């Protein structure tokens, strides 16, 4: 039975997201999708949805939603207690919401982004292979934008099952000190050995400039190698001839305040990138709130592939636990 969800309060920036779209980055259309893919998939598995169904990504402050049909929901990711008609419900566990009831959220108490899955999935149209919202391009999701009060979200059919719970050891914890693993490279030869050491030794602090496009950190200035600027690059030592930006790449405009590009990344530009965050550790970045103290830890490609295998194994265990 399909139905709808009415948005009474939208929260700070609540968007429809799934596992993202592939194959259009060459035209400037990034993957989008939930920034914390593990929590997004977990929320879907908890209610019994396909893992790649569309959910709501909730940032810092939760929405207030009215359901027009009975549904099973689950909230994974950031610590933000869900409430049904004001009564608290657990996270990382599926529970029922009856037609007419109001789902709201308590204050953020850890992490940054929560994922609300609804049985049947959020049923906005598929655009270029995905239901994810890409805000800069006004594309996908609900009218290509974050939710607003008064919006009515379509929900697909699917009964779901309440009472399913993720094992404790498969729930990530969100601290204020995090390590984010990176592969150095791209334009890191623009840094002197001192500049490179500064990048890896500094405890960076996430600034309030942290959204689906990128996360900006403060902490130190990186020393660059002197050079004659190549034609077309620009005069600043951090300038390059505009190049493609990998998702997760860390650019350093003006050699200060590194920016980690996330899943709504600008697809290219003229600032040196010095490293790339491992795809799995983008989940850690996603759950960083401003002020989070962050170390970038270097791994090589083999190390990155080992981390990737660990992450896949962890997801397999979650699938098994919730099957």
């Amino acid at each position: 039975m399909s139905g709808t969800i009415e948005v009474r309060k939208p929260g700070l920036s609540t968007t429809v997201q799934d596992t993202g779209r592939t194959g259009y980055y060459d035209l400037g259309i990034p993957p989008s999708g939930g920034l914390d893919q593990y929590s997004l998939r977990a929320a879907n598995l908890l209610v019994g949805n396909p893992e790649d169904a569309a959910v709501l990504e909730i940032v810092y402050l939760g929405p207030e939603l009215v359901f027009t049909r009975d549904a099973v929901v689950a909230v994974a990711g950031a610590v933000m207690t869900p409430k049904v008609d004001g009564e608290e419900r657990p996270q990382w566990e599926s529970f029922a919401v009856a037609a007419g009831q109001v789902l709201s959220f308590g204050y953020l108490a850890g992490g940054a982004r929560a994922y609300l899955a609804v049985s049947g999935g959020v049923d906005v149209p598929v655009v270029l292979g995905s239901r994810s919202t890409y805000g800069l391009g006004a594309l996908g999701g609900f009218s290509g934008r974050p939710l607003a009060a008064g919006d009515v979200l379509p929900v697909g059919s699917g009964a779901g099952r309440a009472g399913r719970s993720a094992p404790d050891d498969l729930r990530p914890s969100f601290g204020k000190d995090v390590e984010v693993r990176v592969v150095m490279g791209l334009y890191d030869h623009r840094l002197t050995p001192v500049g490179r050491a500064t990048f890896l030794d500094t405890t960076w602090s996430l600034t309030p400039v942290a959204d689906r496009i990128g996360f900006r950190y403060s902490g130190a200035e990186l020393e660059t190698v002197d050079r004659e600027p190549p034609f077309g690059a620009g005069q600043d030592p951090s300038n390059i001839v505009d190049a493609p930006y990998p998702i997760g790449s860390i650019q350093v405009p003006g050699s200060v305040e590194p920016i980690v590009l996330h899943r709504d990344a600008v697809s290219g530009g003229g600032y040196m990138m010095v490293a790339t965050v491992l795809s799995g550790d983008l989940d850690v970045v996603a759950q960083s709130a401003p002020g989070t103290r962050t170390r970038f830890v270097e791994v090589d490609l083999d190390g990155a592939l080992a981390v990737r295998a660990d992450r896949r194994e962890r997801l397999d265990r979650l699938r098994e636990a919730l099957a």
Partner: protein
Amino acid sequence: VTAAAQEARYSWGGDEFVFVELAEEMSLQANFRAMAITAALREQRPDGLLDICPANASYQVRYDPDVLEPHALLAQLKELERQVGDAADVALPTRVLEIPVLYRDPWTTETLLRFRDRHQDPDATDIEYAARINGYGDVDEFIAAHSGSPWFTSMVGFVAGLPFKYQMVPRDRQIVVPKYLRPRTDTPKQTVGYGGCFSCIYSVRGAGGYQMFGITPAPIYDPTQSLPDFTDFMVFFRPADIVKFTPIDREQYDAHVAEVEAGTFRITQRPVEFALAPFLDDPDGYNARLLEVLR
């Protein structure tokens, strides 16, 4: 006729990207090699390759390392680099497009006046500044240079559907203009901009650091796909599109806007083949022949 191809630089971008820099400095040769290599890769398209993104003097691919072994992919990319060589004998099928531009329009002028505190020359407009530092006698002469020779779309991106263009003239005739000192928080949609050695067209309204010279009435991004140019896809530009900017006046601009609103506007486009070697031999003669198809 072409300088020997430089050796490319390969780098891992985390566990899902390979980044390849073909040259440190911008040139049509480097861009053409990026186009030729990525076009050949598209034809081979190994399983597990997810995105192929050509850029100005570089390119990147996104792949799934669980399907496509990273070192095997790297070897394939290096082999393609060797096969393509300096790309002098490659003929690339592409299009010639005519983009009408209202230079010195009221909307970008109003916008640039709001951000003079972020500009190198607060007392001049962006186009006056660009004309002066590039040694043109006046803005009309500058517009004649900007619109006189065609542009090669060297990259599409930054945001959805935004084309970067490199002018098809020898380096001593390239226009070079720095970006704003600090980026603006606003740029009108369809602004014709300039930064470094690239002209661009902003596909959506938003932040931007390129100098603003004018505006085109031609939509280039339509996520609703309601206009006839967007029946097949929401992004109009493709890498390697060749563009002629045609100056128009306010009356022509308004007429085009009325066509856009009526849903009848089309960008004039013709299929052509572009080859690097004959272009480098005689750029102006080659360009003149290319643009004849628009007549």
